[in-house]
């Protein structure tokens, strides 16, 4: 065991202890006990009354229901033995409160003890989740999972990060480019692997030809879903859309985009808590967009709840300018191959509305895109699954034992 050279008072153990975590071995993927624990955790979240206030918590509970666990498990080829890589150290983002749960759950399914650095911010759903998890882990059956779980909090401190990094076989870094650069100053053992989640860009693809014919009720539902994808976490989630690409005839796009944005604006006026500082940030963004180059043709900022800028397809802002608090670029895609010009490696999630799934699958297998790791219907930008950023978590966090 590695000798400790960090003062334990420099970090706070929120759940579990570092010492126990540090001495736990890894185990096989989709361990029965782990699956059982996650199923119980799912049920415990769904039966807890106060969970209903937090859609992000409910979404986690759904992702780890027994049926979903089975789905994840059966996606792996049987007959190949996979085991955890060992102690995993996760640096999770400060701002999407329950992102760490995703990292935790799938690292457990991959067979790894988990040391997780939580954000120092206080979020009610984080406290609620931790309480529920603590309760489930009391079951003596799950003793090894309990020992393999350690949640810590500490203010940025390279010495502590150095220490934790030295004591892991896997490091998972969320939080974008600057965090990755900062954490990489701390070395990991030569055998260890690292998963990183850099800054990404996400967008929506909307079919105006389809939308022009749908009933109001359907349109309302679309607006509601789009609003959730975009305005939850102030549009700052990496999978929140920052750009809307329209397909269809110019006439339909012209009239549908008007209706779409007008309704989104009134939805935001009713439902979005726009802080004064966010309005200030948005006005700065509006001026930066306007003065970036000549690629922006028209802008609408009727009020600060929504800002829409019409950009040419070759605008340097596309794929680069990260709108926040309800700031969108929009452009028209006339040919599917136009997407090849727009989509860079940085693109992560594409949400869509108004297309037949088989048609869309056919299109996206035909064109050659450098990016896009997720294609999901509008409303599912934040849905949790075993895959993220094009990576299957259980696969990435486990190793193959090659038996001949």
């Amino acid at each position: 065991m590695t000798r400790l050279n960090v003062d334990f008072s420099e970090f706070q153990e929120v759940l579990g202890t570092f010492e126990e975590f540090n001495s736990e071995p890894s185990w096989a993927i989709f361990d029965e006990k782990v699956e059982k624990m996650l199923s119980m955790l799912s049920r415990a979240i769904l039966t807890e009354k106060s969970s209903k206030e937090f859609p992000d918590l409910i979404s986690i509970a759904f992702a780890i229901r027994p049926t979903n666990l089975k789905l994840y498990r059966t996606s792996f080829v049987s007959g190949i033995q996979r085991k955890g890589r060992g102690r995993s150290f996760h640096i999770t983002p400060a701002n999407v409160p329950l992102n760490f749960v995703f990292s935790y759950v799938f690292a457990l399914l991959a067979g790894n003890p988990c040391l997780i650095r939580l954000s120092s911010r206080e979020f009610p759903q984080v406290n609620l989740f931790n309480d529920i998890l603590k309760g489930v882990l009391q079951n003596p059956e799950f003793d090894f999972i309990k020992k393999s779980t350690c949640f810590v909090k500490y203010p940025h401190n390279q010495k502590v990060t150095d220490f934790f990094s030295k004591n892991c076989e896997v490091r998972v870094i969320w939080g974008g480019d600057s965090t990755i650069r900062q954490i990489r100053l701390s070395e990991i053992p030569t055998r260890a692997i690292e998963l990183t989640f850099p800054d990404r860009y996400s967008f929506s693809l909307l079919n105006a030809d389809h939308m022009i014919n749908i009933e109001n009720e359907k349109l309302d539902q679309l607006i509601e879903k789009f609003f959730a994808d975009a305005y939850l976490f102030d549009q700052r989630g990496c999978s929140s859309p920052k750009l809307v690409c329209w397909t269809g005839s110019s006439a339909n796009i012209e009239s549908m985009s008007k209706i779409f944005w007008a309704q989104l604006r009134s939805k935001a006026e009713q439902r979005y808590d726009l802080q004064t500082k966010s309005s200030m940030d948005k006005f700065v963004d509006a001026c930066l967009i306007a003065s970036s180059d000549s690629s922006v043709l028209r802008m609408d900022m009727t009020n600060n709840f929504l800002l829409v800028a019409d950009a040419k397809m070759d605008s340097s802002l596309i794929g680069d300018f990260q709108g926040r608090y309800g700031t969108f670029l929009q452009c028209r895609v006339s040919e599917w191959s136009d997407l090849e010009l727009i989509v860079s490696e940085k693109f992560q999630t594409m949400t869509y509305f108004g297309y037949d799934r088989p048609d869309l699958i056919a299109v996206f297998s035909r064109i050659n895109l450098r990016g896009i790791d997720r294609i999901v219907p509008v409303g599912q930008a934040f849905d949790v699954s075993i895959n993220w950023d094009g990576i299957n978590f259980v696969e990435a966090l486990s190793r193959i034992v090659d038996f001949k």
Partner: protein
Amino acid sequence: MDLGDQFFPSTTEILSTDPFTLEKFEKDCLMQKAMQELSDHHTENCWSYSQIVKLLSGSLKWDTNDLQNLPFIPVRLFKHLELRSIPEEDVFKELLSSGTSGQNPSRIFLDRHTAQKQSVTLAKLFKEFIGLNRPPILIVDAPDTIKNRSSFSARTAGILGFSYLGRDLTFALRNDFTIDLEAVARFLAKHENEDILIFGFTSIVWEFFMNSIPLLESGLKFPKATLLHGGGWKKLVDLNIDIDTFNESLIAKLQVNRVVNYYGLVEQTGSVFFECVSGFFHCSNYSNIIIREPSSFEVLGFGKIGVLQLQSVLPLSYPGHSILTEDLGEILGIDDCECGRLGQRFKVHGRVPEAEVRGCSDTFER
């Protein structure tokens, strides 16, 4: 490019008036013409500014014929863009102001005309409120604060700006921010029978001057001093100290004769706002202020707190004539102050509070 007076007749006319002499109707007419003149000039000569006006005028209902709806840009834009309306070779001085540490500094480009108008205007306003003629100045700050002139803070800008209006500049603090008792005593002895000016940043005055134990124990008093301070209450608000406590405590502890607060931005150096005896900031003929509701940018009336917009006739070389600050303020009246000055009277209620940030990024954001 020549930015001489002949090209800006309305601006020049306003600047030729004494600072608090125009009644609302007349002032608004003149101001509107001056602002239109400046907006046209910047639209013609600053590409970024013209793009902003072009693309945002529609939805924000901007109109250069209407003072209240004149285009405005956010003050923070000077940190992101190089905004100037003169060719590079005409830049006489570049002000670099690093507001909060870690951010890009604001870059303000001055030609000779603009720089000169700034100092003349500051002198006029100073004379009106402080009344002293080139007084000896005791600066409540450390000498190092103004040493690095290539990049300075709002604090440095303030010190340099006001120091031209006085003489025998003396620093009250050492570079470690402890009081330099010897220097202060020498300064007081030298100017025993003269009116003096003490100048400093509000929080520095509070922390290192009026609460300096060595100074208080030394028994030094300042009965002939006017203490001028400005530059933000944030620190004092955190300590729960209001303006009255600040003033009373200054007078009680150090027996200064008078305390005057000022409000101004580096982005509009020169047209600053001083507080009158009735406790209001005053807008001179050279400026106009507008309060806006943050989510819609609609104009708010008297007594309503909103985001403060500042218009000034001074900025010729950069498009800073109409800017939206990140400060909250409220207008309390026009042409009706007990102090007798015409113009808007207003209060500043500190910075717009920080938003709670959410999102996947910034694990280590503080």
